[in-house]
């Protein structure tokens, strides 16, 4: 298991194991497979297409009854005027900063901890590993009130600190994944480095980081999503509009739409822009999105 995991996260998928029975010519069963998948795929996409259509509608279309699926005129200006309603640029800036710090903090701290637990033989490492793993199961809500009090007493309410600071102190899920992954790297690699006099810091930075690229890219993606989507924490910690992140800004945008004249075209246009960064990341690193977690899970087994 362990040897396989190293060379191969990418490799295992490239040479996908395909049962023979699937390699069949174009047949009725294959055609119906395409039909079924297309039907399901379109169903999955319809809500998104509908959203794009609303984002392009002129304001006069919004309350039209019965609603039309297509805009009567393509109103690209919604993508400018919509975001202006909520100072989208400001929210985006805030979100990017919080996200970058969160990603950096959680990935570095968890990589270090995972490495130490997997590859350094020291007293108490099992104890710490179990403790870290246990904290995966502690629901955030149990600790939320005391942590909020903590940030009250540190005078950090209504700042971004509570949103990213905890990330710098290890993410239990990441540590668990990292530990599994590091443990699957053959010992012989760092043994030879040790004989050359390399310390753990050097082994970690110059050997392990390149070797574990699928691991930390997956971690970057997961922490990016966690930070970009985080809603409860900004809700609890931020009070000033100019410090809000996009998640809370968008929820407020929806909640504050004028009752008599709700500009859902503006809303949906902004919503699309809000979705754009994660989508870009997805298409850039699709391989890691699609196989990363799955293969890490398989390593962990």
């Amino acid at each position: 298991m362990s040897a396989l995991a190293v060379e191969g996260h990418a490799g295992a998928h490239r040479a996908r194991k395909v049962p023979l029975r699937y390699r069949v010519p174009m047949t009725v069963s294959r055609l119906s497979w395409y039909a079924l998948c297309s039907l399901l795929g379109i169903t999955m996409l319809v809500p998104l297409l509908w959203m794009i259509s609303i984002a392009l509608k002129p304001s006069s279309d919004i309350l039209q009854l019965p609603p039309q699926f297509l805009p009567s005129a393509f109103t690209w200006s919604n993508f400018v005027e919509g975001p202006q309603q909520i100072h989208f640029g400001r929210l985006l800036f805030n979100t990017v900063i919080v996200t970058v710090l969160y990603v950096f903090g959680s990935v570095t701290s968890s990589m270090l901890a995972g490495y130490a637990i997997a590859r350094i033989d020291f007293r108490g490492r099992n104890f710490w590993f179990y403790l870290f793993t246990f904290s995966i199961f502690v629901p955030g809500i149990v600790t939320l009130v005391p942590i909020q009090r903590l940030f009250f007493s540190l005078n950090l309410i209504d700042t971004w600190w509570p949103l990213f600071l905890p990330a710098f102190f290890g993410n239990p899920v990441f540590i668990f994944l990292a530990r599994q992954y590091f443990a699957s790297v053959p010992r012989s690699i760092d043994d030879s480095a040790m004989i050359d006099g390399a310390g753990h810091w050097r082994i970690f930075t110059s050997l392990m980081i390149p070797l574990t690229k699928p691991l930390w890219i997956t971690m970057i993606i997961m922490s990016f999503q966690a930070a970009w989507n985080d809603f409860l924490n900004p809700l609890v910690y931020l009070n000033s509009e100019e410090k809000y992140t996009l998640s809370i800004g968008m929820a407020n945008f929806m909640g504050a739409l004028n009752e008599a004249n709700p500009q859902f075209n503006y809303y949906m246009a902004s919503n699309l822009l809000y979705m754009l960064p994660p989508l870009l990341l997805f298409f850039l690193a699709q391989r890691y999105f699609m196989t990363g977690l799955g293969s890490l899970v398989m390593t962990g087994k």
Partner: protein
Amino acid sequence: MRLSPRRSVRRLLAGLAVAGMTATLLSCGSGDDTSGGTSENPKVTLMTWADPKTRNLYKASLDKFTDKTGIEVELVYVGSAAQYFQKVNSMVLSNTLPDIFWCTTINATFTPLASSGKLFDWTPYLEGTAEGQTKTGLDKSKFGPGYLDFYKVDGKQYGIPNEANTYGAFYNADLFKEAGLPVPTSDWTWEDLFTAIEKLTVTEGAKVTRYGMQTAWGDLYDPVGLSIYSISNGGEAFAPERNWINVSEFSLDPQIEAGAQRWANAIKNGWVTGPDFTATNTFAAFINGQVPLVWGGQWNAAAIFEAKPKMEWGFAPIPAGTATQVAPLESNAFCSPADLENPDATWQVISYMLTDVFNDAYSEYAVAPIAYLPGSEGYFENLKQQGPIGEQVAATVRQELENPEKVGTAFIDPWSPKAGNLIKSHWNPMLEGKRPIKPTLDEYVTKVNELIEAGS
């Protein structure tokens, strides 16, 4: 080991580190720029839940105030009215409340905040006896009756009432005429209401395709609404204290039970939306001519006027019963934190809000009349400019404000949040026909009495 990935990794890490540091610095920088200017001019922060349009109108009027007095006013907004009170709590706990914030007895936060000493006591300023107080021209005697009492806890004035709300039914006169119904009048009755909503309901088979009435505000058939129903038909409210301050004991009048029966029946038949109906587009649908009646507060009129609906419409008051006609008693207020830095400047802002800002702002956008009566002129002026419909709305609002037969719109004693849970678990299921009416009402009364007793 190839060289390139390692390098790119390093570069990536270095890049992340630099980005991280920059962002930390930035976030530190922007973290403490709220501490206010160092200039001599006092600065007062004012937090509101108003929509962007109203906020801009306030701001324009307050700028004139700044020119006159040198006092700067910063408007603070928490992003959503829905989260307003959550943010207030967070600010209370972290001692970051703005100098003035909108508060209301409808929300359960006011009384505990006041009685735990977290709010500023405005009594001496209101009486004009505070030391070194700047004269502002605010006259205590010009508040409408009952409003100041709402914001008094242990004899101290913790809130200065501002917007006075009224409730009633927005109706689509065209749909009424189409159905052969008389358009609601200022003295229409509960009978008229029930007849109308029954006739206005459209069904297709067993399915309701158009409710006779939609509720955008829940007061109609909650315990307060049924108390109103009961009083207007010669019965009693749930408690003798009609403003719900220091409620002594709950009891069940047969008229309340009769009202509950009627509403449960109306909900069952789809004449009216269920008790927890919270559609976001109710008024949009009303403007579109899709909804014959919407139960709501007078502030909705502003948005309806702005949308320029094609139909004939109006705002009818709470219907009359066989005995009398009842009006709601409700207002929002300005509250301030106990450790207020500059009470005199803050008081000047509050006074100016009541005397000038509301007049200026609401003459542009008719949100609400003001509990401080001279502050209502702008509001009514705007309605007048809206033509006959505006005057009709104004007449209804005036009628409710001037009606001496008033009932508070929410429970405000310390037991009220816990009693609020009973609405979800007992009251609403009763109206939806999932619980029998009489036993549930009895249980409700018993449980509220237990809560009242436990609190005293």
